[in-house]
């Protein structure tokens, strides 16, 4: 470890002032060091103050924020004393910045080449022709194929992973000493995330720049960072070398984060009798389900020829990256989409029949009751105008369950089942947190006593600790009520934690299906292997993690996966 520090933050406090309201501290008394050539990760859940820290370092705090105390020094330079002109001299040249969302971070009307050359042009380091040569070199350096062609393309013509590479290329154009990466991979699929992180590691090693890495993902931080700072409520609750924090967390919060992070759980749910999954009469059976929205070459938007079965009382996970067709499958199962062809049997219902024939109203109603869907985003799944009580009473009235006197009791039971206090009933969705809302959504699904519940990314929008609570709740409810779950997620770790059987999907096709542990232990397709391989593994937890350059995959497959 080099003794000298590149970036040193001492006792930084940042307040947000809302108009007329009291100021709220977003960050207080923060100490942080980034050394040359090393990576310091700041980990925290949403609202922990980690992004505020990053913005303070690059001097881009919103106008409502104010630094109340502390010092930020880059080498010998006191960043907080800089004026507008001073900052212009530092940004780009000494500090590079890689943003969170590659989708909106490139000027949509500018070619890739111009975006990458922008820093060179701003700081007058190159004329047009020289800039072009440097751009092509930079693009090649971050692993973009055919850089000459790419330089003339526009952002919308590139995949998310490509765009993030372009942003990295633009940030390192002037060889800054410090790179701030604010959640650079959270908008990316897991295989693409791995590529981008590998790139950052490689650049760090080659150029000796320091990286301040902001993330909500403890596993990513643990795998890549040299030093770790865990933030909670604006404070650093734990910091130190990454290995030490993982192996011996000294605070309760940090250890809870580590245990709750699904990516770090090696123990899967005890598998329900595997025989049950292969019974002759599965509860759900999907046969050659096909529903194609659009087709370009090999790429299918929608689903094609998907088959799997789910035994009663078990959980079936559907995992895949964005555009894999998992949501379409879920919608078809829940009866919100009539597939173009194929069979979907759930109990004694044929879900596909509802679109084609003219089933009786009664029959459709029964099907709706049997299968319930829980959406990804709890904030949009509940009508903001209705109280929780009204939201939970609505399905009872619609399905004519209970009567005027028994409904309040049923609603209270439903709240109790998802461990929410009864006084929440008169609140509106805006007054509840994400986790609480998702509990309400689950309560609404369960109040009609369904047999199958389809969860569409139902925990993806939640912080990791809340996610863990919901997963535990679902597990308990399943054994209590003998429910069958279909659980859709992009997160392999979550699937591993909850599913008995799993289907892996990619680009509208089913790659493989089988018992979860079997697939995790012995993936049969290279696609599944690449997915598993991309799960970050903190060094201290998996001794056998392969070196970064020893990827078992061909690059073409990786790129195509990224573009799906």
């Amino acid at each position, binding site marked *: 470890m080099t003794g000298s520090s590149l970036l040193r933050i001492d006792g930084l406090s940042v307040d947000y002032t809302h108009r007329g309201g009291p100021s709220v501290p977003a960050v207080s008394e923060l100490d942080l060091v980034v050394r040359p050539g090393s990576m310091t990760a700041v980990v925290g859940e949403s609202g922990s103050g980690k992004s505020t820290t990053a913005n303070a370092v*690059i001097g*881009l705090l919103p*106008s409502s924020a104010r630094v109340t105390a502390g010092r930020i020094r880059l080498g010998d330079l006191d960043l907080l004393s800089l004026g*507008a002109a001073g*900052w*212009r*001299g*530092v*940004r*780009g*040249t000494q*500090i*590079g*910045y890689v*943003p*969170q*969302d590659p989708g*909106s*971070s*490139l*000027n*949509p*009307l*500018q070619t890739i080449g111009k*975006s990458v050359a*922008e*820093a060179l042009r*701003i*700081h007058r380091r190159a004329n047009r022709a020289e800039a072009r040569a440097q751009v092509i070199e930079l693009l090649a350096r971050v692993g973009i194929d055919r850089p000459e062609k790419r330089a003339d393309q*526009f952002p*919308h*013509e590139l995949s998310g992973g490509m765009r993030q590479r372009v*942003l990295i290329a*633009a*940030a390192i154009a002037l060889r800054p000493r410090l790179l701030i990466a604010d959640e650079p991979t959270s908008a990316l699929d897991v295989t693409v995330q791995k590529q981008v992180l590998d790139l950052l590691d490689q650049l760090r090693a080659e150029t000796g720049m320091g990286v301040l890495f902001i993330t909500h993902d403890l596993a990513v931080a643990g795998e890549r960072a040299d030093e770790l700072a865990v933030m909670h409520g604006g404070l650093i609750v734990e910091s130190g070398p990454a290995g030490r924090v993982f192996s011996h967390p000294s605070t309760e919060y940090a250890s809870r984060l580590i245990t709750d992070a699904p990516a770090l759980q090696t123990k899967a749910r005890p598998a329900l009798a595997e025989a049950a999954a292969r019974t002759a009469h599965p509860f759900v059976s999907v046969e050659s389900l096909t*529903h194609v*929205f*659009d087709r*370009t070459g090999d790429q299918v938007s929608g689903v094609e020829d998907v088959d799997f079965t789910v035994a009663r009382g078990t959980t079936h996970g559907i995992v895949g990256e964005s555009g894999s067709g998992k949501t*379409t499958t879920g*919608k078809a199962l829940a009866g*919100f*989409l*009539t597939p173009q062809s194929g069979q979907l049997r759930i109990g004694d219902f044929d879900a596909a029949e509802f*679109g084609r024939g003219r089933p009786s109203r009664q029959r*459709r109603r029964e099907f709706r009751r049997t299968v319930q869907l829980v959406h990804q985003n709890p904030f949009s799944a509940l009508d903001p105008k209705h109280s929780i009580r009204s939201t939970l009473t609505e399905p009872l009235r619609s399905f004519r369950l209970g009567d005027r006197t028994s409904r309040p009791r049923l609603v209270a039971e439903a709240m109790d089942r998802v461990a929410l206090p009864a006084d929440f009933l008169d609140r509106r969705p805006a007054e509840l947190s994400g986790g609480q809302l998702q509990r309400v959504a689950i309560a609404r699904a369960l109040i009609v006593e369904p047999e199958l519940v389809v969860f569409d990314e139902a925990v993806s929008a939640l912080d990791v600790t809340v996610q863990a609570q919901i997963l535990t709740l679902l597990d308990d409810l399943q054994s209590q009520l003998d429910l069958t779950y279909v659980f859709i997620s992009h997160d392999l770790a979550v699937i591993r934690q909850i599913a008995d059987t799993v289907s892996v999907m990619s680009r509208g096709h089913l790659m493989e299906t089988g018992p979860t542990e079997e697939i995790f232990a012995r993936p049969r397709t290279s696609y599944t292997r690449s997915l598993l391989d991309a799960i970050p593994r903190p060094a201290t937890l998996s001794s056998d993690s392969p070196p970064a350059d020893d990827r078992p995959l061909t690059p073409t497959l990786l790129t195509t996966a990224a573009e799906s």
Partner: protein
Amino acid sequence: MILDTRYLIVRLGQAVLVLLLAFTAAFILLSLIPGDGVTARFADPTLGLSPEQIAEIREATGADDSWFGRYITSLTGFLTGNFGYSVQTGAAVSTIISAALPSTAVLAISGFVTALVLAVLIAVFATYGPATGPLSRVRRVLDSVPSLFISIPVFWLGILLIQVFSFQLGIVSVVDAGPAEALVLPTLTVAVPLSAPIAQVLIRSITEVQASGFVKVTTAKGASELWLLVHTVARNAVLPGLTIIGLVFGELVAGAVVTETVFGRNGIGLITAQAVTHRDNPILLAVVVIATFGYVIINLIVDLLYPIIDVRLRSKRSVASVSRSLRSHDGPTRRALTATAASVGVDLDWDDDPAPSGETKEKNA
């Protein structure tokens, strides 16, 4: 290939359809519902026309044809530049209009250009500069200027300008003024209210672009505010401004009608006002059709210009099938809708609209 030929044809077809429907609506309103214009005008005993003469006129004007026959006659007339005859003076409507059109066109163009300049100035100074300190007051004042401008009655503004600049200060003469001098006050009268919506849309789009991720990234590269404005913000903020140019055409027409009346300028606006007073429906019908034609053409141009400026629309068109991109609603309607919705604080997520969500729709009725 920037413009897809098929897209071009479909879009042209739409424009023709809208124009035809607008003509039909105006024809029903101004020609069918009022009934027999000839009888109303010439059967007046004071004119002393004999029944034979009236019958002759009826014959000549086709007043006894079925409504469909008159519709077809009128439609073919419009297609060939024959807009019928004024009920008031008997002169050919096309002659009256072509005499008045140049003056109105000059006023409209100068008013529009002035409005554009005014709007850009207001928008830039309302969004740039220090957010705090004494100068921020200037920003806040400018930010509320469009609200003020939009609340001014146009006719009142015209009278006020005459009062102040001609009568009080004597800077601009309204009597015996040269063509350029006579244009100054009418231009201002048209421009001030017209600049308000344009400035408002520009302020909003500049603010939105300023808050976007790529501006933060560019700032993090060390760009100055000027660099950001010129290289990053301007082009992105111009796109919604382009839509507004198509939409304010209606305001321009309203401005011309009122301004020409106030200043007594001979032009389409004055003719329109006189036509209403004398219930000269053929003139009104011609003005409505010509103005609608102008609106449709301008919006067509804006729509065709869009893919040239916004690169994102180029490849989308070539990838997605044309029929799908046009099926639900065409581009200008969407953007106009977005502007409408934004004016009441609603974000429209058009991206959520296409195919898949259409399929999920419940057929549960």
